[in-house]
């Protein structure tokens, strides 16, 4: 489903991702954890090319995203192809990034309508059914600033789903939320996971990782230091750095 090989990324001279290799199967829920600054959000953002990469390759359903080979040289793919690839990849941001000038419904229908994926009728119906799914059927005509953080994030999930993505990326989806609102967002994500959606989640919610992850990937200093089932990672990690990190996050939660 997603195949990342020898991925390197620099911010100027700062080497933020170092030779990342990661393979994700269809229907898999992968949770990426690690200390802040370890590159986990950056890795996630590379997967829909919101962050350009310097070398290596990311394949989604056997097609490259971002960089392609052209006459033996790596170059950025045409924007048209990039947009097409991004349709397959839904993304949920830490700060929601809802469009404040549009109603909840129009946030969801904007992309399908603009890209001619659906007619107005179908798009609206889709929006209402997605909103029902995340428990917000009654907020379709509200504007984003009339919603709580948890509601905003659920709308953002519905908005991403409207494009019928094949994989969903979650970039710290609960980090900007008040503690009492985290549950409702995690529930929506669990629902999605149960339906078989391929999900890659960067989070500090270790409870979610334990319960929902098929695989937990641990990152530190721009590298994947280990990966395994939550059972192994949380009870018997191989790496000392993983132990230190887990000790820090688990003793305080």
């Amino acid at each position, binding site marked *: 489903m997603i195949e990342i090989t020898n991925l390197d990324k620099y911010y100027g001279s700062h080497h933020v991702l170092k030779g990342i290799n990661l393979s994700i199967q269809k229907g898999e829920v992968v949770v990426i954890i690690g200390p802040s600054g370890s590159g986990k959000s950056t890795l996630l953002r590379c997967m*829909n090319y*919101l962050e350009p990469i310097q070398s290596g390759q990311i394949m989604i359903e056997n097609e490259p995203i971002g960089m392609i080979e052209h006459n033996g040289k790596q170059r950025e793919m045409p*924007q*048209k192809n990039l*947009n*097409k690839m*991004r*349709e397959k*990849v*839904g*993304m949920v*941001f830490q*700060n929601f*990034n*809802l*469009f*404040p*000038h*549009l*109603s909840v419904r129009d946030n969801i229908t*904007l*992309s399908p309508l*603009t*890209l001619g994926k659906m007619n107005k009728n179908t798009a609206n119906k889709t929006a209402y059914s997605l909103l029902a799914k995340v428990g917000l059927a009654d907020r379709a005509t509200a*504007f984003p*600033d009339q919603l709580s953080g948890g509601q905003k994030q659920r709308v953002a999930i519905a*908005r*991403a789903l409207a*494009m019928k993505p094949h994989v969903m990326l979650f970039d710290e989806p609960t980090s900007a939320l008040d503690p009492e609102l985290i549950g409702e967002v995690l529930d929506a994500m669990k629902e999605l996971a149960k339906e078989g959606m391929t999900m890659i989640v960067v989070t500090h919610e270790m409870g979610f990782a334990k319960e929902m992850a098929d695989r937990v990937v641990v990152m530190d200093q721009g590298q994947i230091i280990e990966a395994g089932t939550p059972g192994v990672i949380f009870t018997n990690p191989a790496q000392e750095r993983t132990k230190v990190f887990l000790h820090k996050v688990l003793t305080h939660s």
Partner: protein
Amino acid sequence: MALDFGILWQDGNLPLLLQGLWVTIRMTFLALILSCFIGLVIGLGSMSKVKWISGISATYLAWFRGTPLLVQLMLLYYGLAISLHIDFSASVAGVLGLGMYSGAYVSEIVRGAIQSIDRGQMEAGRSLGLSHWQTMFKVILPQAIRRMLPPLANEFIALTKNSSLLSVITVAELMRAANTIVADNYKYFEIYLTIAIFYFVVNFVISTLIKILERKLNVEGVRS
């Protein structure tokens, strides 16, 4: 000596001033539309990743902001006609001159407003499969326009006042009408005070209209 506003009702002075006012309003309005168009193009251009486009935009801004409007008008109307035989009528030169000058300032307003919109908005649009320009026109600009309104009110008011300079390139606008009248009767204070009030009223209307527009856009959604 006493002021004599009765002069307005003599020699057809008031109709002449009102005619001038109408020319001022018309010229300013056309220049305003031109400046918005130029401002949008140059403003977007200045943010382009394509070097020659951002280069042209930066040069445009530097030139039209860095030279006096009066000099620009002289070049456009007299300079081009006499040296290069490009002969604009006074009103065409006037609208072009005002519009191009003001467009430089509008471009900075456009750029500032767009750059003030959170980067996450563009990222969200792109992550949904929208192109850069689709996101720009459907997501970024609708939010940016609201932020442009207060500085645009300033710019449009400046534009109205600057239109008085068109008198030197023979456009029969309000200032020139006043000059014509005082050359006859020396009633400087009465006539210039009258046109000052005319300018003031036009600008008051502009700022009120923009305030109404701001409020309307507020009600329609964005409260960020």
